[in-house]
Protein backbone atom coordinates (compact mmCIF):
# COMPACT_ATOMS: atom_id res chain seq x y z
CA UNK A 1 0.00 0.00 0.00
CA UNK A 2 1.44 3.33 -0.91
CA UNK A 3 1.79 6.27 1.38
CA UNK A 4 -1.28 8.10 0.11
CA UNK A 5 -3.51 5.13 0.90
CA UNK A 6 -2.11 4.95 4.41
CA UNK A 7 -2.72 8.66 4.96
CA UNK A 8 -6.28 8.38 3.69
CA UNK A 9 -6.77 5.29 5.84
CA UNK A 10 -5.73 7.28 8.91
CA UNK A 11 -8.15 10.07 8.01
CA UNK A 12 -11.04 7.65 7.51
CA UNK A 13 -10.10 5.96 10.76
CA UNK A 14 -10.44 9.07 12.92
CA UNK A 15 -13.45 10.52 11.16
CA UNK A 16 -16.81 10.22 12.86
CA UNK A 17 -18.66 10.74 9.59
CA UNK A 18 -18.26 9.44 6.07
CA UNK A 19 -15.58 11.42 4.21
CA UNK A 20 -16.25 12.53 0.67
CA UNK A 21 -13.50 12.68 -1.93
CA UNK A 22 -13.66 16.46 -1.97
CA UNK A 23 -13.39 16.60 1.82
CA UNK A 24 -10.30 14.40 1.66
CA UNK A 25 -8.96 16.53 -1.15
CA UNK A 26 -9.40 19.65 0.96
CA UNK A 27 -6.99 18.11 3.47
CA UNK A 28 -4.63 16.55 0.93
CA UNK A 29 -4.36 19.39 -1.52
CA UNK A 30 -1.03 18.04 -2.71
CA UNK A 31 -2.77 15.10 -4.37
CA UNK A 32 -5.30 15.35 -7.17
CA UNK A 33 -8.77 13.89 -6.79
CA UNK A 34 -8.09 11.12 -9.27
CA UNK A 35 -5.18 9.85 -7.21
CA UNK A 36 -7.30 10.04 -4.08
CA UNK A 37 -10.09 8.05 -5.68
CA UNK A 38 -7.64 5.41 -6.85
CA UNK A 39 -6.14 5.11 -3.39
CA UNK A 40 -9.59 4.73 -1.83
CA UNK A 41 -10.51 2.06 -4.35
CA UNK A 42 -7.34 0.19 -3.51
CA UNK A 43 -8.29 0.38 0.16
CA UNK A 44 -11.82 -0.90 -0.48
CA UNK A 45 -10.39 -3.74 -2.52
CA UNK A 46 -7.94 -4.60 0.18
CA UNK A 47 -10.50 -4.71 3.00
CA UNK A 48 -12.79 -6.80 0.83
CA UNK A 49 -10.27 -9.40 -0.18
CA UNK A 50 -8.80 -9.91 3.27
CA UNK A 51 -10.79 -11.13 6.19
CA UNK A 52 -11.07 -8.02 8.36
CA UNK A 53 -13.47 -7.18 11.16
CA UNK A 54 -14.53 -4.10 9.25
CA UNK A 55 -14.71 -2.92 5.67
CA UNK A 56 -14.53 0.39 3.88
CA UNK A 57 -17.88 1.32 2.37
CA UNK A 58 -19.28 4.12 0.31
CA UNK A 59 -22.04 5.66 2.42
CA UNK A 60 -24.01 8.88 2.12
CA UNK A 61 -21.75 10.34 -0.52
CA UNK A 62 -18.59 9.54 1.37
CA UNK A 63 -16.44 6.69 2.58
CA UNK A 64 -16.51 5.15 6.01
CA UNK A 65 -15.15 2.15 7.84
CA UNK A 66 -17.97 -0.06 9.06
CA UNK A 67 -17.94 -3.32 10.95
CA UNK A 68 -19.05 -6.42 9.07
CA UNK A 69 -22.72 -7.21 9.74
CA UNK A 70 -21.88 -10.84 10.62
CA UNK A 71 -20.14 -9.65 13.80
CA UNK A 72 -22.99 -7.48 15.04
CA UNK A 73 -23.95 -10.01 17.73
CA UNK A 74 -20.54 -9.80 19.35
CA UNK A 75 -20.44 -6.04 19.12
CA UNK A 76 -23.79 -5.72 20.83
CA UNK A 77 -22.43 -7.77 23.70
CA UNK A 78 -19.65 -5.28 24.16
CA UNK A 79 -21.17 -2.69 26.39
CA UNK A 80 -19.26 0.53 26.61
CA UNK A 81 -17.99 0.80 30.16
CA UNK A 82 -20.31 3.65 30.79
CA UNK A 83 -18.62 6.39 32.73
CA UNK A 84 -21.00 7.85 35.27
CA UNK A 85 -22.53 10.92 33.78
CA UNK A 86 -24.67 13.15 35.93
CA UNK A 87 -26.75 16.19 35.31
CA UNK A 88 -25.64 19.32 37.08
CA UNK A 89 -28.46 19.17 39.68
CA UNK A 90 -27.69 15.51 40.40
CA UNK A 91 -24.02 16.33 40.77
CA UNK A 92 -24.83 19.10 43.24
CA UNK A 93 -27.04 16.86 45.31
CA UNK A 94 -24.44 14.11 45.26
CA UNK A 95 -21.74 16.53 46.36
CA UNK A 96 -23.77 17.74 49.31
CA UNK A 97 -24.51 14.18 50.36
CA UNK A 98 -20.85 13.21 50.02
CA UNK A 99 -19.57 16.06 52.15
CA UNK A 100 -22.43 16.31 54.62
CA UNK A 101 -23.44 12.70 55.16
CA UNK A 102 -25.36 11.36 57.00
CA UNK A 103 -27.80 13.97 55.77
CA UNK A 104 -31.54 14.51 55.47
CA UNK A 105 -33.34 15.48 52.30
CA UNK A 106 -34.57 18.68 53.92
CA UNK A 107 -31.00 19.64 54.75
CA UNK A 108 -29.94 19.12 51.13
CA UNK A 109 -32.90 21.15 49.96
CA UNK A 110 -32.10 23.92 52.39
CA UNK A 111 -28.62 24.21 50.91
CA UNK A 112 -29.65 23.91 47.27
CA UNK A 113 -32.83 25.89 47.72
CA UNK A 114 -34.86 23.59 45.47
CA UNK A 115 -36.73 20.31 45.66
CA UNK A 116 -34.28 17.41 45.40
CA UNK A 117 -36.67 14.45 45.26
CA UNK A 118 -35.91 13.73 41.59
CA UNK A 119 -32.16 13.95 41.83
CA UNK A 120 -32.11 11.83 44.99
CA UNK A 121 -34.08 9.16 43.17
CA UNK A 122 -31.65 9.24 40.24
CA UNK A 123 -28.69 8.91 42.57
CA UNK A 124 -30.36 6.03 44.41
CA UNK A 125 -30.99 4.32 41.05
CA UNK A 126 -27.36 4.74 40.04
CA UNK A 127 -26.45 3.30 43.46
CA UNK A 128 -24.27 6.30 44.24
CA UNK A 129 -26.18 7.03 47.44
CA UNK A 130 -28.21 4.94 49.84
CA UNK A 131 -30.60 5.29 52.71
CA UNK A 132 -28.63 4.79 55.90
CA UNK A 133 -31.49 5.21 58.36
CA UNK A 134 -34.37 7.33 59.60
CA UNK A 135 -34.22 10.30 61.86
CA UNK A 136 -36.32 10.49 64.99
CA UNK A 137 -38.19 13.55 63.83
CA UNK A 138 -41.83 14.05 62.89
CA UNK A 139 -42.40 12.02 59.74
CA UNK A 140 -39.26 9.96 60.42
CA UNK A 141 -37.35 11.35 57.43
CA UNK A 142 -34.81 9.20 55.58
CA UNK A 143 -31.10 9.76 56.10
CA UNK A 144 -28.80 9.53 53.09
CA UNK A 145 -25.17 8.61 52.66
CA UNK A 146 -22.85 7.59 49.83
CA UNK A 147 -22.20 4.00 48.77
CA UNK A 148 -19.25 1.78 48.01
CA UNK A 149 -20.10 2.32 44.36
CA UNK A 150 -19.59 6.04 44.90
CA UNK A 151 -16.10 5.40 46.18
CA UNK A 152 -15.35 3.20 43.19
CA UNK A 153 -16.63 5.73 40.68
CA UNK A 154 -14.56 8.48 42.22
CA UNK A 155 -11.57 6.30 42.81
CA UNK A 156 -11.52 6.85 46.53
CA UNK A 157 -10.17 4.44 49.09
CA UNK A 158 -12.73 5.55 51.64
CA UNK A 159 -14.92 8.54 52.32
CA UNK A 160 -12.26 10.28 54.37
CA UNK A 161 -10.04 10.37 51.27
CA UNK A 162 -12.45 12.90 49.84
CA UNK A 163 -10.29 16.01 49.69
CA UNK A 164 -11.57 19.08 51.43
CA UNK A 165 -11.74 22.44 49.75
CA UNK A 166 -8.98 23.75 51.93
CA UNK A 167 -6.58 21.00 51.05
CA UNK A 168 -6.61 21.69 47.36
CA UNK A 169 -6.54 25.41 47.57
CA UNK A 170 -4.47 26.57 50.46
CA UNK A 171 -0.81 26.08 49.81
CA UNK A 172 1.15 24.00 52.28
CA UNK A 173 -1.73 22.84 54.41
CA UNK A 174 -0.76 19.29 53.57
CA UNK A 175 2.76 19.67 54.82
CA UNK A 176 2.61 20.99 58.34
CA UNK A 177 6.30 20.31 58.79
CA UNK A 178 8.00 22.48 56.26
CA UNK A 179 9.97 20.07 54.15
CA UNK A 180 10.90 22.49 51.49
CA UNK A 181 14.35 23.14 52.79
CA UNK A 182 17.08 21.86 50.59
Amino acid sequence: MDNLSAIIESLLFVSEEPLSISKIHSVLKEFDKKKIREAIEALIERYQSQEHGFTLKEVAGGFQFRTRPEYSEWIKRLKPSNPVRLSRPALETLTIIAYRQPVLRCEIEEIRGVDCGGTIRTLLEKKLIRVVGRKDLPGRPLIYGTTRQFLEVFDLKDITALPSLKELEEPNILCPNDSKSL
Partner: protein
Amino acid sequence: MVDNEYCVRLEIFEGPMDLLFHLVRENRLDICEIPISLITKEYLEHLDLMKTINIDLASDFLIVAATLIRIKSRTLLPVSEEGEEDEEEGTEIARPLSEYLRFKKAAETLATRPLLDQDVFVRRFSPEDWTDKGHGPMVQVGICDLIDVFKEIMENAKPEYLVDLTREGLSVKKRIAELVDILEKSSSITFQELFSSKTNRSEIVITFLAILEMVKMDMIRIAQQLQDGVVRIFYG
Protein backbone atom coordinates in the same frame (compact mmCIF):
# COMPACT_ATOMS: atom_id res chain seq x y z
CA MET B 1 -2.33 30.08 40.12
CA VAL B 2 -1.78 33.58 41.44
CA ASP B 3 1.86 33.23 40.46
CA ASN B 4 1.00 32.81 36.81
CA GLU B 5 -0.57 36.20 36.68
CA TYR B 6 2.70 37.87 37.48
CA CYS B 7 5.25 36.61 35.05
CA VAL B 8 5.82 34.27 32.19
CA ARG B 9 9.27 33.64 33.60
CA LEU B 10 7.81 31.02 35.89
CA GLU B 11 7.25 28.96 32.79
CA ILE B 12 11.01 28.87 32.36
CA PHE B 13 11.88 28.24 35.93
CA GLU B 14 9.78 28.03 38.97
CA GLY B 15 11.95 27.89 42.04
CA PRO B 16 14.95 26.75 43.98
CA MET B 17 15.90 23.52 42.20
CA ASP B 18 15.20 25.16 38.90
CA LEU B 19 17.15 28.19 39.90
CA LEU B 20 20.08 26.21 41.11
CA PHE B 21 20.07 24.18 37.93
CA HIS B 22 19.81 27.35 35.90
CA LEU B 23 22.66 29.07 37.70
CA VAL B 24 24.93 26.07 37.49
CA ARG B 25 24.13 25.55 33.84
CA GLU B 26 24.43 29.20 32.87
CA ASN B 27 27.96 29.27 34.12
CA ARG B 28 28.65 25.92 32.51
CA LEU B 29 30.49 24.92 35.59
CA ASP B 30 30.75 22.03 37.89
CA ILE B 31 28.62 22.57 40.95
CA CYS B 32 31.74 21.78 42.91
CA GLU B 33 33.56 24.81 41.48
CA ILE B 34 30.91 27.40 41.84
CA PRO B 35 32.09 30.96 41.23
CA ILE B 36 30.33 32.57 44.10
CA SER B 37 30.51 36.15 42.89
CA LEU B 38 28.81 35.29 39.64
CA ILE B 39 26.18 33.28 41.40
CA THR B 40 25.52 36.02 43.90
CA LYS B 41 25.25 38.61 41.18
CA GLU B 42 22.77 36.54 39.22
CA TYR B 43 20.93 35.66 42.35
CA LEU B 44 20.57 39.30 43.28
CA GLU B 45 19.19 40.04 39.84
CA HIS B 46 16.58 37.36 40.27
CA LEU B 47 15.85 38.55 43.76
CA ASP B 48 15.34 42.08 42.48
CA LEU B 49 12.77 40.76 40.11
CA MET B 50 11.10 38.46 42.56
CA LYS B 51 10.98 40.30 45.86
CA THR B 52 8.39 42.68 44.59
CA ILE B 53 6.39 39.78 43.32
CA ASN B 54 6.48 36.75 45.52
CA ILE B 55 8.11 36.74 48.91
CA ASP B 56 7.95 32.95 49.09
CA LEU B 57 9.99 32.55 45.94
CA ALA B 58 12.45 35.17 47.07
CA SER B 59 13.02 33.40 50.36
CA ASP B 60 13.43 30.11 48.57
CA PHE B 61 16.13 31.65 46.41
CA LEU B 62 17.80 32.93 49.52
CA ILE B 63 18.13 29.37 50.80
CA VAL B 64 19.74 28.30 47.56
CA ALA B 65 22.22 31.14 47.56
CA ALA B 66 23.05 30.71 51.23
CA THR B 67 23.69 27.03 50.71
CA LEU B 68 25.94 27.74 47.76
CA ILE B 69 27.91 30.28 49.73
CA ARG B 70 28.33 27.85 52.57
CA ILE B 71 29.65 25.17 50.24
CA LYS B 72 32.01 27.62 48.64
CA SER B 73 33.30 28.91 51.93
CA ARG B 74 34.06 25.35 52.97
CA THR B 75 36.21 24.88 49.92
CA LEU B 76 38.20 28.01 50.74
CA LEU B 77 38.97 26.93 54.28
CA PRO B 78 42.02 24.76 54.91
CA VAL B 79 41.15 21.08 54.61
CA SER B 80 40.76 19.62 58.06
CA GLU B 81 41.47 16.13 59.20
CA GLU B 82 37.84 15.20 59.09
CA GLY B 83 37.46 15.10 55.34
CA GLU B 84 34.20 13.19 55.60
CA GLU B 85 32.40 16.15 57.00
CA ASP B 86 33.26 18.19 53.94
CA GLU B 87 32.01 15.46 51.71
CA GLU B 88 28.65 15.54 53.44
CA GLU B 89 28.40 19.26 52.97
CA GLY B 90 29.02 18.93 49.27
CA THR B 91 26.58 16.13 48.67
CA GLU B 92 23.97 17.80 50.79
CA ILE B 93 23.10 20.04 47.90
CA ALA B 94 24.42 17.95 45.03
CA ARG B 95 22.24 14.96 45.86
CA PRO B 96 18.82 16.66 45.74
CA LEU B 97 19.90 18.62 42.71
CA SER B 98 20.98 15.51 40.86
CA GLU B 99 17.74 13.82 41.85
CA TYR B 100 15.82 16.81 40.54
CA LEU B 101 17.82 16.71 37.32
CA ARG B 102 16.96 13.07 36.83
CA PHE B 103 13.28 13.93 37.09
CA LYS B 104 13.76 16.90 34.82
CA LYS B 105 15.27 14.56 32.27
CA ALA B 106 12.46 12.07 32.82
CA ALA B 107 9.93 14.86 32.24
CA GLU B 108 11.64 15.76 28.98
CA THR B 109 11.52 12.13 27.91
CA LEU B 110 7.86 11.92 28.83
CA ALA B 111 7.15 14.98 26.72
CA THR B 112 8.65 13.29 23.67
CA ARG B 113 6.21 10.38 23.81
CA PRO B 114 3.51 10.22 21.13
CA LEU B 115 0.86 12.34 22.77
CA LEU B 116 -2.81 11.47 22.37
CA ASP B 117 -4.69 13.93 20.15
CA GLN B 118 -1.44 15.49 19.06
CA ASP B 119 0.66 12.71 17.58
CA VAL B 120 -1.70 9.79 17.72
CA PHE B 121 -5.45 9.69 17.41
CA VAL B 122 -8.10 7.21 18.35
CA ARG B 123 -11.62 6.76 17.12
CA ARG B 124 -14.09 8.88 19.02
CA PHE B 125 -17.81 8.74 18.90
CA SER B 126 -20.29 11.48 19.38
CA PRO B 127 -21.21 11.78 23.04
CA GLU B 128 -24.96 11.55 22.39
CA ASP B 129 -24.51 7.85 21.82
CA TRP B 130 -24.16 6.99 25.46
CA THR B 131 -25.95 9.66 27.41
CA ASP B 132 -29.27 8.98 29.00
CA LYS B 133 -31.86 10.88 27.09
CA GLY B 134 -34.07 13.49 28.64
CA HIS B 135 -31.93 14.49 31.58
CA GLY B 136 -30.40 17.56 30.09
CA PRO B 137 -26.71 17.88 29.39
CA MET B 138 -24.62 15.35 31.25
CA VAL B 139 -21.23 15.89 32.71
CA GLN B 140 -18.65 13.25 33.24
CA VAL B 141 -17.53 13.76 36.77
CA GLY B 142 -14.33 13.44 38.71
CA ILE B 143 -13.14 14.43 42.15
CA CYS B 144 -12.38 17.98 41.06
CA ASP B 145 -15.94 18.44 39.86
CA LEU B 146 -17.18 17.39 43.27
CA ILE B 147 -14.93 19.90 44.96
CA ASP B 148 -15.79 22.69 42.57
CA VAL B 149 -19.50 22.04 42.90
CA PHE B 150 -19.21 21.92 46.66
CA LYS B 151 -17.31 25.18 46.67
CA GLU B 152 -19.94 26.88 44.55
CA ILE B 153 -22.76 25.52 46.66
CA MET B 154 -21.11 26.67 49.85
CA GLU B 155 -20.47 30.12 48.44
CA ASN B 156 -24.15 30.49 47.73
CA ALA B 157 -25.32 28.86 50.93
CA LYS B 158 -26.39 30.57 54.10
CA PRO B 159 -23.64 31.37 56.58
CA GLU B 160 -24.63 28.66 59.05
CA TYR B 161 -23.60 26.04 56.49
CA LEU B 162 -20.15 27.45 55.95
CA VAL B 163 -18.47 25.58 58.77
CA ASP B 164 -16.08 23.11 57.18
CA LEU B 165 -15.85 19.57 58.37
CA THR B 166 -13.29 18.88 61.02
CA ARG B 167 -11.01 15.90 60.69
CA GLU B 168 -12.61 14.29 63.71
CA GLY B 169 -15.98 14.71 62.09
CA LEU B 170 -14.69 12.99 58.98
CA SER B 171 -13.37 10.05 60.93
CA VAL B 172 -16.70 9.62 62.67
CA LYS B 173 -18.42 9.82 59.30
CA LYS B 174 -16.09 7.21 57.90
CA ARG B 175 -16.81 4.96 60.86
CA ILE B 176 -20.54 5.46 60.36
CA ALA B 177 -20.20 4.41 56.73
CA GLU B 178 -18.24 1.34 57.83
CA LEU B 179 -20.81 0.45 60.47
CA VAL B 180 -23.61 0.76 57.93
CA ASP B 181 -21.66 -1.59 55.68
CA ILE B 182 -21.33 -4.11 58.49
CA LEU B 183 -24.97 -3.77 59.52
CA GLU B 184 -26.18 -4.10 55.94
CA LYS B 185 -24.51 -7.50 55.80
CA SER B 186 -25.63 -8.80 59.19
CA SER B 187 -28.55 -6.86 60.58
CA SER B 188 -27.15 -6.86 64.11
CA ILE B 189 -23.80 -6.93 65.81
CA THR B 190 -22.66 -7.08 69.42
CA PHE B 191 -20.91 -4.21 71.09
CA GLN B 192 -17.98 -6.44 71.93
CA GLU B 193 -17.48 -7.46 68.32
CA LEU B 194 -17.16 -3.84 67.32
CA PHE B 195 -14.47 -3.10 69.85
CA SER B 196 -12.60 -6.36 70.23
CA SER B 197 -10.31 -5.89 67.25
CA LYS B 198 -9.59 -2.27 68.02
CA THR B 199 -6.51 -1.84 70.11
CA ASN B 200 -6.09 1.77 69.16
CA ARG B 201 -7.54 4.15 71.72
CA SER B 202 -8.68 6.78 69.26
CA GLU B 203 -10.36 4.13 67.12
CA ILE B 204 -12.41 3.08 70.12
CA VAL B 205 -13.41 6.65 70.81
CA ILE B 206 -14.33 7.24 67.16
CA THR B 207 -16.38 4.06 67.01
CA PHE B 208 -18.16 5.07 70.18
CA LEU B 209 -18.85 8.56 68.86
CA ALA B 210 -20.12 7.03 65.62
CA ILE B 211 -22.52 4.81 67.54
CA LEU B 212 -23.79 7.75 69.58
CA GLU B 213 -24.27 9.77 66.40
CA MET B 214 -26.13 6.89 64.76
CA VAL B 215 -28.39 6.51 67.77
CA LYS B 216 -29.10 10.19 67.72
CA MET B 217 -29.92 9.96 64.01
CA ASP B 218 -32.09 6.97 64.83
CA MET B 219 -30.15 4.84 62.40
CA ILE B 220 -29.61 2.05 64.91
CA ARG B 221 -31.14 0.64 68.06
CA ILE B 222 -29.15 -0.70 70.97
CA ALA B 223 -30.47 -3.40 73.27
CA GLN B 224 -29.03 -5.42 76.11
CA GLN B 225 -29.90 -9.02 76.68
CA LEU B 226 -31.24 -9.67 80.17
CA GLN B 227 -29.57 -13.05 80.69
CA ASP B 228 -25.94 -12.56 79.65
CA GLY B 229 -25.79 -8.77 79.49
CA VAL B 230 -24.58 -8.75 75.85
CA VAL B 231 -25.18 -5.38 74.21
CA ARG B 232 -26.40 -5.69 70.64
CA ILE B 233 -26.75 -3.09 67.93
CA PHE B 234 -29.64 -3.41 65.48
CA TYR B 235 -29.88 -1.72 62.10
CA GLY B 236 -32.88 0.39 61.11
